[in-house]
C-alpha cells in the first residue's frame, strides 16, 4: 500500500522563474530519499515540462511535491494542478509531436516516459491535473 510519507511542498506556478523553483525543489526532495545522478535529472526535467505547460497554457497553477513509501520502497509523487482551459483531447496531446504552442510537442508524452507512473485528468473549462511518480531503484 502506497502511503504519502511527507506533507507536500507546494510551489505556485505563474512565471518562468517558478518553473525553475519547482524543478529545484523536486531535485532536492528526490535527492533526500536516495535518487542519484541521472534519475535526478529525469525527475527535474519531467517537473520542468509539466510546469512549463502550466505557464504556457494555463497561466497559473500549483505543483505539489511529496515523498511516498511502499514498505521499504521510496519514491516521489508530483501533482500539478491548474484551473486553465483544460485539454479537449488528452489522447492527442499525449501523442509525440502534437503541439499548439511554444513546445516541441514532446512535453507531456516525454514527461510520461521519464517517470514510472503518469496520469492526466482534464476537463475543458475546469482545468488539468497531472499526477506522476517515480521510485528509487
Amino acid at each position: 500500500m502506497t502511503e504519502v510519507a511527507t506533507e507536500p511542498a507546494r510551489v505556485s506556478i505563474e512565471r518562468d522563474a517558478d518553473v525553475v523553483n519547482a524543478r529545484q525543489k523536486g531535485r532536492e526532495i528526490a535527492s533526500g530519499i536516495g535518487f542519484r545522478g541521472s534519475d535526478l535529472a529525469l525527475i527535474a526535467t519531467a517537473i520542468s515540462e509539466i510546469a512549463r505547460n502550466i505557464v504556457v497554457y494555463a497561466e497559473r497553477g500549483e505543483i505539489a511535491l511529496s515523498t511516498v513509501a511502499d514498505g521499504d520502497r521510496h519514491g516521489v509523487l508530483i501533482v500539478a494542478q491548474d484551473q486553465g482551459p483544460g485539454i479537449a483531447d488528452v489522447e492527442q496531446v499525449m501523442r509525440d509531436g502534437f503541439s499548439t504552442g511554444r513546445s516541441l510537442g514532446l512535453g507531456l508524452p516525454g514527461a510520461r516516459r521519464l517517470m514510472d507512473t503518469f496520469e492526466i485528468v482534464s476537463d475543458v473549462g475546469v482545468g488539468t491535473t497531472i499526477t506522476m511518480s517515480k521510485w528509487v531503484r
Partner: protein
Amino acid sequence: MTVPILRQGPVLIASIQAAMTDLDLMQLKDELSTRVGSHRSTGVVIDVSALDVMDSFATRMLRGIAQTTQLRGAHTVIVGIQPDVAFAMVQLGLRLDDVSTALDLEEGLELIADNRPEGRQ
C-alpha cells in the same frame, strides 16, 4: 538576467549561466544575431554547461538561436551539455537536429577553427 557575450577574435561566446527564462533566451537570440553582423563573426559558441535541465522548451529556443546565427553566416556550436542532461534529453526524445555540438568550450572553438574557409581569418 542577460547572458554575457564574450568576443574572442572572430568568435562570439555566450555562456548561459543559470536557469534562464524564455525572455532571456529570446534576447540572447536578438543580441547574438546583431553582433554576428556588427563584429563580422564567423563562429558562435553557446555554452550550456551550467544548465541542469534542458526541457523541450529550452531545447526549442536554443535550436532556434543556433539556427538563426547559423543563417547569419556564423558556424554555431552548442557546448557543454552535461551527461545527465543529455541522457534526459534522449529519454524525452529531444534532438538538436542540424545544430553542431561539442564537449566543451575548447572543443567548440576548435571545431569552428577547423571549419573556417581557407584564407579567411
